[in-house]
């Protein structure tokens, strides 16, 4: 699904070298976490895959596409401030479908194989996602008037309404309180399984990385060349949070990050 070959990236001409000859491969259907301390390039990597940054050298392929701009089949969810503050929850969820309607299936802004969504279809899809994510009661409210958890639900609904095959998330739950965070982590796990999404989640929380990623990419020192990959096959199984395997996995990650268990 994602193939990164010999990626080199630096900010500006003389900025820090973040990646050097970096290689990474993600197969379809895999659930990945990327973990690292701040400034290790994890968000940069996500932005490169999302097509929102250009590689200095090397190639990034997602599906059959060489990434040079955002790919319409890739969904992206950010930590905060991704919603239109002047639009209602409903309008925010409808935004992606409206953009597709705006361009039509041009292959550049919307998938070529998908017909232009009609108003009726948009209505149906948006409504069903609002119900699905339990934010239908908030449908007429502005983002400023709902809770952080509801905002992230809105962002998830907006992204999934476009039926992406790859879901990228940049610290999506970092600004939420613990119960809401766990709630949404469970939601993402169930959506992952159900929609057979390939997913990449960037996080600085060790527990979150272990809960959501069956494969965990650990980024540490700049520039990133050789990477540590931790296999975590039990992630996503019910009750994983309270198992000894989970705690061991967290400790393993702490070691890789240079922390004491």
């Amino acid at each position, binding site marked *: 699904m994602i193939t990164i070959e010999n990626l080199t990236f630096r900010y500006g001409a003389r900025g820090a070298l973040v990646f050097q000859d970096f290689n990474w491969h993600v197969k379809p259907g895999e659930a990945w976490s990327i973990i690292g301390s701040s400034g290790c390039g994890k968000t940069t990597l996500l932005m490169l895959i999302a097509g929102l940054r250009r590689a200095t050298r090397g190639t990034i392929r997602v599906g059959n596409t060489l990434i040079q701009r955002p790919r319409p089949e890739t969904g992206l969810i950010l930590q905060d401030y991704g919603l239109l503050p002047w*639009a209602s929850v409903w309008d925010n969820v409808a935004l992606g479908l409206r953009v597709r309607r705006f361009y039509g299936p041009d292959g550049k802004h919307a998938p070529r194989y998908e017909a232009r969504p009609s108003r009726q279809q948009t209505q149906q899809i948006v409504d069903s996602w609002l119900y699905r994510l339990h934010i239908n009661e908030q449908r007429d409210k*502005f983002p400023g008037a709902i809770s952080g958890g509801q905002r992230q639900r809105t962002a998830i609904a907006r992204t999934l309404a476009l039926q992406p095959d790859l879901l990228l998330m940049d610290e999506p739950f970092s600004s939420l309180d613990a119960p809401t965070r766990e709630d949404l982590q469970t939601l993402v796990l169930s959506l992952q399984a159900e929609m057979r999404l390939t997913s990449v989640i960037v996080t600085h929380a060790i527990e979150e990385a272990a809960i959501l990623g069956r494969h965990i990419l650990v980024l540490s020192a700049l520039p990133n060349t050789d990477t540590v990959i931790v296999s975590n096959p039990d992630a996503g199984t019910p009750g994983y949070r309270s198992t000894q395997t989970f705690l061991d996995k967290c400790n393993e990650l702490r070691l890789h990050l240079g922390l004491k268990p």
Partner: protein
Amino acid sequence: MQRTTPAPRSEALTPGSTPTGLLRDVTRHVLKRVGNLALAVIIFLACWTALAAYLDRDIMPYPWQVGPVFVDELQGVLWDHMLVSARRVLAAIGAAVLVATPVGLGLGQIRALNRVFSPLIGLVHPIPKIVFLPVILVVLGVGERSKVFLIALILFFQILVVVRDEAAGLRPELIQSVRSLGAGRRALFRYVYLPASLPAVLTALRVSVGTAIAVLFIAEQYSTREGLGYYIVTLTWQRLRFEEMYSGILAMSLLGLVLYTVVDVLERITGRWRSAGEYY
């Protein structure tokens, strides 16, 4: 309501938090305004009467002397002059919005451009544009264009600065999110920049519409035989027709009041989300 459970977030507590309450909000707002307006008119008329009694001169007639003349004149020439003035202001507003909005968006989004042009704007913005009246009259001629241009020039800088700051204040996360949904330049403009800058444009207009009409008054002193400025100074004041002169003043005030109110209501409608809570 039970005391033990926290009160659900009530609509009344967060006015304007839902788009469906739009009509109710606007109606309430308009009614409140009308009430305030009635009170203001009464106080205004009282002050006017007191001043007229105190001065006791021809230049300061009583409101009841002006009232009938105003109604009479409005059915005659005054209405035509008012229309001409209104047309000039509206043309200027339209031109200024159409030019200043895209330029402001460009400056706000492209940092390199802003670095070059911001100092220039900072330098030119505070100059009272009315001083260019003679130049504009000579270059653009005596017709409508020179007057519309002068007013548009004033509005241009006001709108430019506000739209620029609004566009610069848009969070990169928002732009990235919308781009990830497939939006290119055109869709970003349609779904992000345009709705984001609309309230800003209206704020700028609300603040500057008074200045625009003041400048219109001065511009209408030169090379025209139409408009409220011409009516007030040449047709009435210089001929000592003071009741008619005050009719003209009333008409000009009304023009300003109507424009201000329309802009204010539109600004409230488009900017309702601002009162919905912290999220920007």
